[in-house]
């Protein structure tokens, strides 16, 4: 009855092996077993977005994804993506625009924003607002976050012209 299951995955470029209870969700595994405190837990119902991480190149709610499901997959958190330099433009823009206060939502915001920039490079301000509506922020009032994301989108559009 509920034996632990052996799993193996790549987390932020490193091969990780463990034996875990099926019910343990990915964010608890990342935070508690691997010490990666980047992703946060807010609601554990999938509504707030603080737990957003990347699995096989897509953002997912880490609280609605079991660690056992990540077996054989590539998992990336804000720590890994920062090290790779994937988030640098966004992080610079966030700092310039004061888009972070307490920082609780920021990991999720950055990961969400990164997927938007990659998938919808022509996004308008309205589309940015719609996209990040799945990430709750209690501090900033959102405008500065949208400004930061628009900065990156616009810079990217200018470059490709």
């Amino acid at each position, binding site marked *: *009855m*509920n*034996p632990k*299951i052996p799993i193996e995955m790549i987390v932020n470029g490193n091969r990780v092996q463990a034996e875990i*209870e*099926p*019910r343990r*969700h990915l964010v*608890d595994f990342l935070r508690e077993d691997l010490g990666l405190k980047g992703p946060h837990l807010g609601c*554990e*119902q*999938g509504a707030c*977005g603080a737990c*957003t991480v990347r699995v096989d190149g*897509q*953002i*997912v*709610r880490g*609280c*609605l*994804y*079991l660690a*056992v*499901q990540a077996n054989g997959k590539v998992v990336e958190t804000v720590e890994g993506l920062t090290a790779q330099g994937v988030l640098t433009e966004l992080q610079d823009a966030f700092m310039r625009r004061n888009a972070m206060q307490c920082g609780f939502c920021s990991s999720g915001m950055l990961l*969400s924003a990164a*997927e*938007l920039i990659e998938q919808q490079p022509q996004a308008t301000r309205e589309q940015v607002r*719609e*996209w990040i*509506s*799945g*990430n709750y922020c209690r501090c900033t009032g959102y405008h500065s976050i949208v400004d930061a994301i628009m900065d990156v989108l616009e810079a990217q559009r200018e470059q490709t012209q």
Partner: protein
Amino acid sequence: MKAAAFDYIKAQSIPEVLALMREHGDDARLMAGGQTLLATLNMRLSEPQILIDITELAELKGIELSGEHLWVGALVTHTEIENAPLIKKYAPILQAAAPHIAHRAIRNLGTWGGSLVYGDPAAEWPACSIAVNATMVVRGLQGERRIPARDFFVDLYTTALAPDEILMGTEIPLANAKDVFSFQELARRHGDYAVAGLAAVAKKTSQALSDCNFVFFSVATTPVAAVQAQNLVNGQVVNAELITAAVAAARAEIETMEDITNSAAAKSHLVGVLLERALKKMLAD
């Protein structure tokens, strides 16, 4: 909150899934995207003994052209529908609806089949599946059977799927150049459960609409088609007078249900608002 303990098995074949379902009955839960299931378990609103992960089953995947139909497998994610060229061409209303489902991170995992078998009154896919005249293909220990979408959603959270059956996917008749559609969802915030919604599909020849499907969601316990309004509009030139009549018919025939956002009367009002907007849009397209 953390889920109660459960066993987990990643099924490798459909016979294996059906055998496990038979063995465990209601103590087992099937997991596809898990976006509703895991939230339910995290809140301890359900404590199953075993989770059967079906995400490896190839027969449930894929969006394919198959003769006269578009096959959409049960495991196709909302994001895949949002991006697929075949959906854009042959079932465009689905692509219009997809961005309304929750938020991107959830759409990356949540599935077409999962939404259909839960049959949440506020869900987009049940209404859309009826609007496109989809046929559900289900399989159980007795074999396979086909259920038209309009007969699939029976009651609150209750579909025609038997407890020992699994949804394989849906067959959707191909849209062509004559098809017009309108998808609308009213919600307090983007991604919230719908307050009221309408999936409308029809065939248009000059200014007349036919083969109309006006399927409302989040106004009753299941998606509901405004049959009288459809009959009124079918084969007729759409003008202001017809729109007014259709709106009145829809408001009269649909028994709306109140919920946490609106009274039944407010929902009836919104039924008319949505239908008017849909007819005008389809006329203009």
